[in-house]
């Protein structure tokens, strides 16, 4: 052994106290350098805080009607004006942040869980499992997604919860296909062969080795999809299939105010702006995450 010890000495790293850089820490450092992504993240965090604190920071209740004060232009008492029932638009947007983010987040989590499960099974086991799952995805993708969502809501009945379920279902194939293709490449890696050689069960192999190494495109796609899901929820709300009045969901607010687009444009502009900013924030953040998590962009 002494010979080994001698041979080893030039291989020793310079210092014992070198910093330990985990892959996630490394990604965060790269993300931090990206100004646009940081702006996106701040926007998103701003809306999340708005949503969480809405009951305390909204100047007025969501459903406080004031018939003497309908369709008021923005002023010092109503910063973003009032709608056709005299309700404060700002307060409704703040409460709407909670609903929209909740729908966006939950539906994407639902899609990811279902998509990952199906995608991993298809990618790892291949053969007939893959054929069945992939063809199912193809069928779902053959429908225009919003049409499929409308159909699902029509079957389940219009409500915010059903809109959420519909949005989760229509996004499953996107995630499923993404993770399937990633699993197909990850399972060829030698460390997967090494894990099998150790004598590991399939379940452990999938959860501890294949999933963590396939998940980064899902995180990126997930972030981008929250934006899309918010738009889809707004679209369903606009069509009267999502949130029901008087819930202050942003899309639903747009739908209610479409009659006043010329006379009281603020009732429409501000909810629209809120949707746009949130989606933009998620998109910028998603792009930043993609750059940070892409191994090919290493230094």
């Amino acid at each position: 052994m002494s010979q080994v010890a001698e041979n080893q000495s030039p291989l020793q790293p310079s210092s014992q106290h070198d910093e330990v850089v985990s892959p996630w820490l490394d990604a965060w450092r790269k993300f931090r350098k990206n100004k646009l992504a940081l702006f996106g993240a701040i926007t998103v965090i701003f809306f999340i805080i708005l949503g969480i604190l809405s009951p305390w920071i909204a100047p007025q209740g969501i459903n406080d009607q004031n018939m003497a004060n309908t369709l008021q232009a923005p002023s010092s008492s109503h910063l973003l004006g009032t709608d056709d029932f005299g309700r404060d638009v700002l307060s409704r947007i703040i409460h709407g942040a909670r609903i929209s983010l909740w729908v966006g987040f939950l539906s994407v989590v639902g899609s990811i869980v279902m998509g990952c499960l199906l995608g991993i099974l298809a990618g790892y086991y291949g053969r007939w499992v893959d054929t069945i799952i992939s063809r199912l995805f193809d069928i779902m993708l053959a429908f225009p997604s919003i049409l499929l969502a409308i159909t699902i809501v029509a079957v389940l009945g219009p409500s915010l919860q059903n809109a959420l379920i519909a949005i989760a279902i229509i996004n499953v194939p996107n995630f499923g296909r993404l993770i399937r293709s990633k699993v197909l490449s990850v399972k060829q890696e030698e460390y997967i062969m090494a894990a099998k050689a150790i004598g590991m069960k399939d379940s452990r192999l999938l959860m501890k080795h294949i999933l963590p190494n396939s998940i980064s495109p899902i995180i990126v796609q997930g972030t981008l999809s929250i934006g899309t899901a918010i738009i889809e929820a707004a679209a369903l709300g606009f069509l009267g299939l999502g949130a029901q009045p008087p819930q202050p969901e942003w899309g639903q607010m747009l739908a209610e105010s479409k009659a006043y687009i010329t006379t009281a444009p603020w009732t429409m502009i501000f909810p629209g702006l809120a949707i746009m900013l949130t989606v933009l924030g998620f998109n910028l953040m998603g792009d930043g995450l993609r750059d940070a998590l892409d191994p090919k962009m290493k230094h």
Partner: protein
Amino acid sequence: MSKTLLQVHNLKKHFPIYGGILNKKVGEVKAVDGLTFSVKEGETLSLVGESGCGKSTTGRLIMQLIEPTDGSVIFEDQSLTELSKKQVRLTRERMQMIFQDPYASLNPRHSVQKILEEPLIVHGIGSKEERKQRVKEMLEVVGLSSYHAKRYPHQFSGGQRQRIGIARALMTKPKLIIADEPVSALDVSIQAQVLNLLQDLQKKFQLTYIFIAHDLGVVRHISKSVAVMYLGRIVEIADSETLYNGALHPYTKALLSSVPIPDPTIQKESIPLSGDLPDPSKPPQGCAFHSRCEACMDVCKTQKPTLMEVEKDHYVACHLYEEDKQFNDK
């Protein structure tokens, strides 16, 4: 004499080739075509051959990472080919593998601690503290330091990573280690270090190695016996000394002549191999090597030579020596 640890009998792996619009089977690659050999406890058998000759496939077949088409693998008097999937998994505690590419064989998202303790977790060995202790010990054994446990693979050099790979293979105290070209991805200077480490570990833990390599020079010192493979078959198998001093098969001779000698004054006879390795899905009729053989005879083009013992423990599959033997018998 020590007892036989691993016996491989008539091992075959044929990979089907699918093609055409109906995805029908149109042919097959005989990656491994009837291997028979055995390894005794504490010894090293090297499998040598060009790329594509089936040596890595053999390693994986022995580990049961891929299912053999035919034949049997008997490890510690247990036939692995007859065991259930779960039982095979459990035998991996006693047989482990070292991989070729140290950059690809370690999970980039796991720290060294996690990589090394995983075999113990999988086989339910030790408590959390004991495992931690064992990881530290093993890091020292392979010539790294215990504080390396917290780091990630990308923070190490190739040689260091290969030491981690070796440590992982040793965690469960296995008896048999299948080393699949463990040094071919490393610099020459590091190769020597890793080979020395493997030899030291063999003495220390009474390990048995199956050492897969494409370079006869690398395996000379580490192996007790050497098997030379060509297109899925063993063409010559002998004790290391016998093989290096008196190789008989024309293919082995050609391989040996290509090993560089670190002395420029020695002029050695070079036997160049002409042509490429034939398409393994359409191996030549008769002896698979006849298309590149210098001593090719008519019989080589029609009849497959069988592995025959020409001296004690020295087997060759070549018509040249079959005739000799017949001649001598008369």
